């Protein structure tokens, strides 16, 4: 058992040392012409990726470091859960290709739900997204879902609302309970929570 463990450690170490030594030797003599990746087209590529999370927040509790305004018009307990996949549309714009979002505002007993399939919400609107990595605080990354507001079902099928959601994964590598993840829910009909630190739960940018 011990021998296996040592083998696992030794071989990667030797490989690492060899790579660094080879790369740092003075025998390089390469073409120095400017080079850009073959996909370069002057437009920023939208990274594929997945974000998942859920929990509770209690606005106002603003995350100023990531751009909270300090003004919350949708206050009180909010619980939520989501799972979204990022991709690009035909024009290279960043979109949510599929996902589910559920948000509950407890003081007003209001529930929102957004379902996204093939890049569109249930009402045929493309769900544009914007990834900010690193984010303004430098603690992680933030994702805006619904650069153009999207349509959510309200309280089951009792109505609709235009919404946007912002998520910040700020606790990468940080101790649990650092409580630096943040979420913002903007509802045309009910108000704006502002970018708010979570009271409990987690937001995870878990890559492609």
């Amino acid at each position: 058992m011990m021998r296996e463990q040592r083998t696992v450690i030794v071989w990667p170490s030797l490989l690492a040392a060899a790579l660094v030594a080879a790369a740092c030797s003075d025998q390089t003599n390469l073409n120095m012409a400017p080079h850009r990746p073959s996909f370069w087209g002057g437009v920023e590529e939208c990274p594929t990726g997945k974000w998942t999370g859920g929990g509770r927040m209690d606005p106002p509790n603003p995350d100023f470091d990531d751009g909270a305004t300090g003004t919350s018009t949708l206050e009180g307990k909010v619980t939520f859960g989501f799972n979204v996949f990022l991709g690009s549309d035909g024009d290279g714009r960043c979109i949510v290709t599929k996902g589910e979002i559920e948000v509950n505002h407890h003081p007003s007993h209001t529930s929102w739900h957004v379902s996204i399939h093939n890049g569109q919400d249930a009402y045929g609107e493309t769900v544009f997204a914007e990834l900010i990595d690193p984010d303004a605080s430098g603690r992680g990354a933030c994702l805006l879902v619904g650069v153009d507001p999207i349509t959510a079902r309200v309280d089951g099928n009792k109505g609709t609302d235009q919404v946007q959601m912002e998520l910040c994964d700020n606790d990468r590598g940080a101790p649990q309970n650092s409580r630096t993840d943040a979420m913002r829910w903007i509802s045309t009909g009910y108000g704006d929570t502002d970018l708010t630190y979570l009271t409990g739960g987690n937001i995870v940018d878990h890559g492609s």
Partner: protein
Amino acid sequence: MNSMRMHWVNCLAAFGLVVGLTAGFMGASVAQSVAGQAYSTYVNTPAASSGQAPLAVLPAVSGTDGAEADAQGSALSVPDALSSDFLNSITSGEIGTTESGAQSTASAAHINILNGLITADEVIANVMSRSTASGAASNADGSTFQNLVVAGVPVTWGDDVVAMDLPGVGYVVLNEQIPSGDGVTSSGMTVNMIHVYLQSAGGLLGGATTTGEIIVGSASSSVGP
């Protein structure tokens, strides 16, 4: 000049590759399984029963992926046992290269248990489990209740687990927390915000027998190898 710059670019690239490989080896210890479930109410008494509702169960997650499930109910009434409204259950989970986790939340409002023996304006159960290369952990942060009254006694939320007798009925555990896992490769947590244990009086041999239970606000999450 260009040669010098290229030299350092190669150094940096190699260093980045080494860091990436190292992260890859570390990532191997991140949890490869996640689970979650949440429900607002459950009744199982000699007189009445109602299953876990509304129930949200995290679908199977494999590879590096994520999922979300939710369920809602506008109102629930089980005569002489429980009434409540604005019932919501959500669970989500993800498996990533550097972090895996699951989080669940269940809530209910206007709660009335056993014809007013226990009342509350609102209950929220919230749990999360998380695994990174440095270990696995869970907590129930975000759980709470509002204006809870047990047998005429107001109970203030304070993060503590509280057990109270219900004379002639049994007892209730508030903010009941059930941890699981080894904290290294696995971790889990179930929180039941209001858990009523109905008991019959002891017979000649003494000791009470549990005859039923009522749960309001239950959320579970776990990560494992």
